[in-house]
């Protein structure tokens, strides 16, 4: 009984962190139709930005995190206009090559600015330590991650399904020419969507820093896991990503308790099984 409860608690906590760190990628990949393998660079930039603001200006964790997310979203704007927009209509391979190049630039850049060792992102007092559940304890930060994950999910669902921006974005991705003919300013929609994705990536970088510590090789190291979560969920679907993150999180966590050395094999075997069954992912639509 204790074991099952433990597995469920750890699965949810881990799954939500997976959700938060990959939601930005799912947005750019699905809604923008852009294969942005440099997602990790934005995530890392968010984490580093927050750590830097805290260390240099003594800002609080919350303020630094919000500022870093806003900063990354803001910086993504010119980046999209100058670089990404040129590749919006190019083939997937061109986008892959371009963004992989960007990953290496990001690795070198962060290495020069912050060094190659781990940069800690200190948590505020109330998020440190753990909460006692009598039969076990759970790290407080994980509870915060679950709350943030649920908030992000709800906010995104509302934004994409209920607002004009959401409708325009989906229209622009579905058929850019028709959208333009209907008077939708697609260039503006793209840059806003991209900025949103980058901001979410940065948020993931901050929230996920406990599990994925900040170091220059971050974007390359976690790329496979991020892509796996997004692929299983179906690109562009927040709800699908949520289900995927929970599924993969549960499989891996249960394996860690029961057959520790096989846990990462189970993770990827689940991915294989889901994609064999539904190639477009759990909630994905076949194009």
């Amino acid at each position, binding site marked *: 009984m*204790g*074991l099952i409860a*433990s*597995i469920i608690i*750890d699965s949810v*906590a*881990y799954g939500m*962190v997976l959700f938060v760190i990959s939601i930005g990628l799912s947005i750019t990949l699905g809604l923008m139709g852009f294969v942005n393998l440099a997602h990790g660079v934005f995530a890392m930039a968010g984490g580093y930005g927050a750590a830097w603001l805290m260390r240099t200006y003594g800002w609080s964790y919350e303020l630094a995190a919000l500022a870093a997310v806003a900063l990354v979203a803001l910086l993504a704007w010119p980046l999209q206009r100058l670089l990404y927009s040129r590749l919006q209509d190019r083939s997937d391979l061109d986008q892959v090559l371009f963004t992989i190049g960007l990953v290496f630039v990001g690795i070198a850049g962060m290495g020069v600015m912050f*060094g*190659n*060792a*781990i*940069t*800690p992102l*200190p948590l505020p007092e109330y998020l440190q*330590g*753990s909460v*006692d559940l009598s039969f*076990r*304890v759970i*790290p407080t*930060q*994980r509870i915060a991650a679950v709350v943030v994950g649920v908030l992000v999910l709800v906010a995104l669902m509302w934004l994409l399904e209920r607002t004009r921006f959401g409708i325009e974005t989906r229209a622009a991705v579905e058929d850019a020419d028709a959208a333009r003919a209907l008077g939708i300013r697609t260039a503006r929609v793209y840059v806003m969507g991209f900025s949103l994705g980058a901001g979410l990536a940065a948020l993931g970088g901050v929230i996920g820093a*406990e*599990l*994925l*510590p900040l*170091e*220059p*090789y971050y974007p390359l*190291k*976690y790329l496979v*896991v991020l892509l796996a979560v997004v692929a299983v969920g179906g690109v562009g679907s927040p709800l699908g990503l949520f289900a995927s993150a929970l599924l993969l999180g549960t499989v*891996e*966590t249960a394996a*860690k*308790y029961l057959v*520790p*050395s096989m*846990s*990462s*094999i189970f993770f990827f075997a689940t991915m294989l099984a889901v994609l064999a069954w539904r190639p477009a992912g759990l909630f994905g639509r076949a194009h």
Partner: protein
Amino acid sequence: MASSTRVLPLLALAAALVGSPVQAQQVVKVGIVGPFSGPFASSFGTPFRQGIEAYVAQNGEKAGSTRVEFVYRDLEGPNPERAKALAQELIVKEKVQYLGGFVFTPNALAVAPLIQSAKVPTVIFNASTSMILSKSDYFVRTSNTLPQVTVPVAKYALDMKVKRVVTAVSDYGPGVDAENAFRQTFQEGGGEIVESIRMPLNTTDFGPFLQKIRASKPDALFVFLPFGPPTFGFVKAFNDNGLKTAGIRFLGTSETQESDLQALGEAALKLETGYYYSAAHDSPQNKAFVETLAKVKATPNPATVAAFDGTHVLYKMIEATGGTANGAKAIEAVKGMAWESPRGPMKIDAQTRDVVQNVYMRVVEKLPDGRYVNRETKTYAAQPDYGLQLKK
């Protein structure tokens, strides 16, 4: 008068030209192979360079009357083919008389045939698999071997009356070797291994492993993890899942190495590790070493001291051969050599050419100025490489 001042340099030049093929060379080149860029640069490449430079700063550019020149070659990760190509280029084109560096075992093994036939003495600054040195007569090591630091940790656990231990290691070669070395020593001494967990290398969430360990209520946990994110994640999870408050001891080896320690911070407090170098080692040699490094804002890391001592061995070999290329004589000169290093007393074994040194048990403490250090608590003196005594 005027003519003689013009002639003299010419004469000297002529003498030098005639003399150079037979006489000792005035400059001896040493090739250093290590990860000077990429993910391993901060833990190994950069410390290698700083260790060498610290030695040169303290002892000058000359070994005896020979000037020593270091030629660096970047090798990012485990890549035997490239290691061999680099070593060949250094020996043939750069005409280096000695090699040094080598972080990864496969890279060191790849150059063994080469240095054996070219008779190029090679000082290993890191690669810690026991059997490397048996692959060539020209290998010397100034770092450690895995069993050398793991066996004393197991002895310490027995000395501290620790009865039940869970081992948790990353599932790769060195992790499995460490698990093996710990288990054999601990069980032979009457200890009980409750459980052995091997964690996949790409694990990011260590929580479930630690919950599982906590549930089996051991006295101590023996771990072996690669530096960087895995160590960082594991140590955080060790705290967050309440193992430290439950009084389970954390026993490790290189997990609290100096280049990671400040980033680990508070979470590392009270962790116990057995290793060959602590930046807080109390000796005049270490004080001078730390001060030299402080001038270039470098952190004294185990890899730094391994390179520092490696350079010492290189200097002694160059001194003994007076700069002539005589690999056999150079190696003979350092066999059995003993000296006081910043890490403490150390020796090159006369038979195996491996390092014999103290292994210190240390506990992480916070200094009044907010820095974290590995404070030495117990010394296991003159530890050999136990690798050959252990069963596979």
